């Protein structure tokens, strides 16, 4: 059974690239374009791992992360935060809120795949 990955980002071209990348590695994918959408999809799709953008309309990635962690149904899902904001405080904040990893954009596709695999192993 293939692993499920939820891609959350409001930037269409990034979504396209991540979707393509994950499918190529054999993951099952779903896409959400804002915070509310992400929470909905996380419940419906029950992903094993979420690639979560921080800067999004409606709900930020931090809020989504926090909400996921407080809901028992999703508390154990792996979360990798993806963001164009690379400041130390934001990295610390993401990890403190329960993210498993924090990746800054632009990222190396190879490294990202390795990171996802290591978290799903």
């Amino acid at each position, binding site marked *: 059974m293939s692993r499920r990955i939820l891609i959350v980002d*409001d*930037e269409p071209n990034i979504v396209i*690239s991540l979707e393509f990348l994950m499918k190529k590695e054999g993951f099952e994918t779903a*896409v959400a*374009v*804002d915070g509310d959408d992400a929470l909905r999809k996380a419940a419906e799709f029950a992903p094993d791992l979420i690639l979560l953008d921080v800067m999004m309309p409606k709900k930020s990635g931090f809020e989504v992360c926090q909400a996921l962690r407080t809901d028992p149904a999703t508390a154990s899902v792996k979360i990798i935060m993806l963001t*164009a904001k690379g400041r130390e405080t934001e990295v610390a904040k993401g990890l403190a809120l329960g993210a498993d990893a924090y990746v*800054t954009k632009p*990222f190396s*596709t190879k490294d990202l795949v390795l990171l996802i695999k290591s978290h799903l192993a």
Partner: protein
Amino acid sequence: MLQGWVIVFASFVYLGVLFAIAWYADRRADAGRSLISNPLVYALSLGVYCTTWTFYGSVGRAVASGIGYLPIYLGPTLLFALAGFVLVKMIRVAKANRITSIADFVASRYGKSQVLGGLVTVIAVVGVVPYIALQLKAVSNSFAILSSYPEIVMPAMSGTIPLFQDSALYVAMILAAFTILFGTRHLDATERHEGMVAAIAVESIVKLVAFLAAGIFVVWGVHEGIGDIFAQADAVPEIARRLTTADSPATYGTWGTLVFLSLFAALLLPRQFQIAVVENVDISHLSRAVWMFPLYLFLINLFVLPVALAGLLHFQGGGVDADTFVLTLPMAHQQEMLALFVFIGGLSAATGMVIVETIALSTMVCNDLVMPLLLRMPILGLATRSDLSGLLLAIRRWAIAIILGLGYLYFRMAGEAYALVSIGLISFAAVAQFAPVVIGGLFWKGGTRDGALAGLTAGFVLWTYTLLLPSFAKSGWMPAGFIEHGLFGIDLLRPQHLLGLTGLDEITHSLVWSLLANLGTYIGVSLLRAPNLREARQATLFVGGAEAAGIPGWRGSAGVADLLPLAGRFIGFERAQEAFARHAHERGLRGIEELPADTRLVNFAETLLAGAIGSASARVMVASVVTEEPLGIDEVMNILDEASQVRRYASEVEQKSAELTRATAELREANAQLRQLDRMKDDFISTVSHELRTPLTSIRAFSEMLQEDPKTDLAQRSRFLGIIVSESIRLTRLISQILDLAKLESGRAEWTVESVDVGEVLSDATESMAVLFTEKRVTLEIETCEPGLAVQADCDRLIQVMVNLLSNALKFAPAGSGHVKVGARGTANEVRVHVTDNGPGVPLADQELIFDKFRQGAGTADVLTDKPQGTGLGLPISRQIIEYFHGRLWVESSPAAGTSFVFTLPRLTGDNDASKNS
């Protein structure tokens, strides 16, 4: 038997014995073994209070008003028994400041004022001269009565005897000579006269014993004891009446007044001050005197009433003046030796008073009246004369002679107008005027020189008007109508019923008015200003007591070389040298030459001089040699100046501190602004980097995927490449817009300003955007455009604004059904351009927000494909451009009507246009 020569001889023998005692006491004093340094002598010398007024007058007053003579002695008794602390303080202060007289005391207390010293002297002389006249009268009368023994004949009216047959004249001359001998044989630095005090103590014994002898003789010699006298008196209603006082408020009032008056007199009469304060050897003597002196007063009054009653009984039918009973009763019973003794007793009472009083007055006249005047007359060259001690002695001797001369004159001209007691009370009332300034000066620091001057003057004037002038009028020197009808016939100004005040005897009346005015003015005027520096210093010395004496009076210094000759000039070189040597010894130095030129030495010299010439004059003299200016007016002004400088400085500091606070606040604000700007810059950079990273992320991801898998199928590959290209374009546009905005914001942008036709801008912009609109199937239409609308602007920048607004409209206009309208209209002053779409509209809350950097309208962002394209910098840039040309750019929007971006620019009129183009 008792011929005149016997009496005269006895008198001279008595005076000779007194002088011998004085001489001996002086010798003992010079040898350092003081005869008078014991409490008994001090208490006895205080007995100088009892003059012939007591010796003869008490009986007279007892005859007139029963026990009405008593208050005169109750006052001093109360003073010593209850108010000893006032005396202690007075003596302590006087010793610390080498006070020489009551005038010196007042002058010194109020800033060493010469004027004040002079005023006190004048009041004292004017007030006391009648009292001296009284003594002359008593001696001369008693002499006349005694010399007519065995007849008892009342003396002729004074003034009716030819001048050179008038015994009073000779009495005055003899007393003057004796006083000069007693008081001015040499100048003493402390103005103490040990010999005189010893003589006065002896005189007190003589007069007491004489009076007691007369009393005992009358009570047990003539009658059979006191009970017998009273029983006999009781039998005669006319006499019995005198044993009680009239039971009326006025009588009690008079009692109160007399107690009050005599209390002050015992403290403030020049002779009392002299004996009690100046001549006091040791302050501890006072503790014995507080009961010994009242005891003395008690004893000398013991037989007053019996003698008075016996006299009344014996001389029924009148003809004998009650004032003479003490003398005439022994005469009537042929006791010639007793009578002679009584006469000597009366003489001792008179001489004691006259000697001490005139010495005290002469010191005041010399130190506080004559010397200050002479020192002010540069013509006399006193300031440079080498030895002034002789001059000082001469002045005092003349003063003694003149004062006694005045006393005789008063006796001769006015002495018969009043009974003895009344004259004494006039004097008492005069010196009572010193009470507010002296007692106030001892206990209230607020008193000033002006207040003291005003108070004394007011009191003195009222005393003169209500008591002295009426006494003149009664003597016939002034029209009697003055008393009856008041000055100028004004009823309210009647001197003995001033302002209609009636029901009081004349003494009480005068005292009420004069002391009321005195005290009121003293306090009132003193309160007008704060004491100046010198007054405040003296106030501290007087009110604060001896422990405050350490306060330096001089800020400058002078050496022995200056001060010793100065002191020598006034008190004699040898005495000065002795005093300086003593001072050096006290300071633990070996000799005069070791004395340093310091403040302490100056103070010592001033105090030494004060003992000889009074504090006010001493200050002036010392000021002439002290190198630095003394605490004169200039000095006070300087100090005030310093104070105001300090105040000014303080206010400057305060101002500076306020400025500093203000500057700090400004800095803090600026700092906060900087922090804000820094945070904004941080945010901006963070946002910019975010905006740059986003397209880069896509570019990198697709590039890596293409690189990794070269076998990606063609359709996929071209799709990826297309994304890479468009994201690259986006990135480029972003970078150039950021740079553009930075340039605009920093003012470094280059502008080509010219007259621009708005219609051309609209058509250029719409043409360049036409393809994009067609691609999205949105219609674009130039609605209205008035021809000839011109503005002053940069044409390319205006096109940039239009393109921005059009792409914005295109972005939000729905594909297919979208409709964008453009128009331009002109008013008199401006050109108004709008770009309107039929998109979702901008919520009111966002209408300003969208002009912020990187804020994009998010209305359609929930649909992935409608994610707004663009950088979020177009609107901020457009606004910058429009505002640069003094226009405005804003948005009008409602969900139904879509969005309208509007900008205005100042319109160029035709004339301007022409001129610009020419």
